[in-house]
């Protein structure tokens, strides 16, 4: 497997270099593609798009808050973060799987590795796998995205090592299923019915297949914990699962479980930003009641 990985890395490198240096014919085709159509004015080249000032200002404020809190955590300031009730359920679920001698099923969502929800899911997977390894319980992770699979294998391997049980890690427990959305749902549902895991984790970003998997898991009597930033799937998870991490709780849980002060600093920055947003909303509501216009972004406020 490491040999195959190295080969894949070299292939990526080769293809990337090939892509980075386009052939003259490609250059020409690209220039033609990007050229404006006849009669259309040429796109203006500007180093700053003023229409996006309303995005830039809040982003800079948030980045400033995050840096301030991270610096504060680095100086050793103890940051308090309240406990999320759903996290107690994770311990309970793994404990139950251990008692029943059955595996834990962890689904990292259907999104790719470049999505923040998947990054948060990988953090939680690390903690779940570590706990499961300490209890000598098997963790199964079927994946829809091959890149996520590769990361999940590393995360679980590291977690087993941290728990002092690298011998228990089996690479075939973290495997690729299919890129097809409902093909993945069918495979996971079949796995739930055949293997009957005692605990199912749905952590990450899900789409329409969420209910198919969550209801199948419900029918097997497994304890189910979900965490998603997909607002459309939240009602389904709340109905079918025992505990659900709602929206930002997914990100907060991943940071909370890590216990890393720098990451906790970023969580405090999120709280501070929320406070600013609440103040901003209140000002907006009062302004609306008083019929004041506050659209100063566009310079038309009065």
């Amino acid at each position, binding site marked *: 497997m490491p040999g195959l990985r190295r080969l894949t890395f070299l292939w990526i490198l080769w293809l990337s270099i090939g892509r980075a240096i386009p052939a003259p014919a490609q250059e020409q085709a690209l220039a033609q593609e990007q050229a404006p159509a006849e009669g259309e004015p040429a*796109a203006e080249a500007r180093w700053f798009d003023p229409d996006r000032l309303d995005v830039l200002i809040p982003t800079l404020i948030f980045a400033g808050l995050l840096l301030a809190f991270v610096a504060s955590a680095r100086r050793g300031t103890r940051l308090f973060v309240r406990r999320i009730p759903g996290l107690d359920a994770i311990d309970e679920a793994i404990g139950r799987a251990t008692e029943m001698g059955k595996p834990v099923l962890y689904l990292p969502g259907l999104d790719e590795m470049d999505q923040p929800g998947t990054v948060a899911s990988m953090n939680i997977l690390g903690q779940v796998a570590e706990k499961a390894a300490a209890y000598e319980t098997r963790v199964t992770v079927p994946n829809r*995205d091959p890149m996520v699979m590769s990361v999940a294998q590393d995360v679980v391997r590291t977690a087993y090592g941290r728990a002092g049980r690298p011998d228990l890690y089996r690479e075939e427990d973290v495997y690729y299923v299919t890129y097809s959305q409902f*093909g993945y749902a069918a495979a996971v549902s079949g796995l739930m019915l055949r293997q009957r895991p005692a605990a199912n984790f749905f952590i990450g970003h899900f789409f329409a297949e969420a209910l198919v998997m969550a209801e199948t898991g419900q029918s097997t009597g497994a304890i189910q914990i979900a965490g998603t930033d997909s607002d459309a799937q939240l009602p389904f998870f709340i109905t079918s699962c025992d505990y659900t991490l709602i*929206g930002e709780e997914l990100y907060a849980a991943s940071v909370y479980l890590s216990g890393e002060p720098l990451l906790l600093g970023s969580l405090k920055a999120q709280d501070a930003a929320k406070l600013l947003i609440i103040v901003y909303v209140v000002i907006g509501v009062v302004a609306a009641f008083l019929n004041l216009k506050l659209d100063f972004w566009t310079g038309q406020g009065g």
Partner: protein
Amino acid sequence: MLQRSLPIFFAGLVGIFMAVQYFVLHPGMARIYNLVLDWKQVVFACTLMLGVFSLIRFHWRKIARRTADAFYSLVVVISCSITVLAAAVFGTETGPYTWLYDRVQAPMQATMFSLLAYFVASASYRAFRARSVHATLLLLAGAVVMLGRVPTGDLIGFELHGQRVSLASIAAWILDTPNLAAKRGILIGVGLGMISTSLRIILGIERAYLGLSRGTGADI
């Protein structure tokens, strides 16, 4: 050391570029942006190879060990091989590969999707059991919204201060006011979480995407 710091450095560099290019209107930036997206596709195609390798190995082991569900694994390996051969020999535009896709894969996907209707029914039954005040409120709101979204909802209503209040208008109010307010609250939190995660990656604090999740700081 380089094995860890180099990917973190590149992730930060690309992260900063992606953030900056959003605010810049320049063809050069757009070109690099498209190039990065192309690279992503290339990387994906390569990792797909790892995925297929993992899939075949997983099922092959099951077949070799003659586990209880080895038959399903055999079906996976055979159908995967037939599909790959069909595409390699006859191409992907016409022929057996398209036939397999249109006549086998697409109907199977549609079947799984249609199962959702039954799962929605079973989930709704559980959610709408009026066992507490909250569940009763949910049941009432659900009934009003469902009735309000069909033509009958327009016909059911009453007059209030000379204005007609129908189930459709109450359903629209539920969806546009309390429902949307709660949804936006969740979305703002999610948005902040996403920005925070992205900034952590740029700053090199977040390393989960490299398979380096942190040690347990808090008991689960």
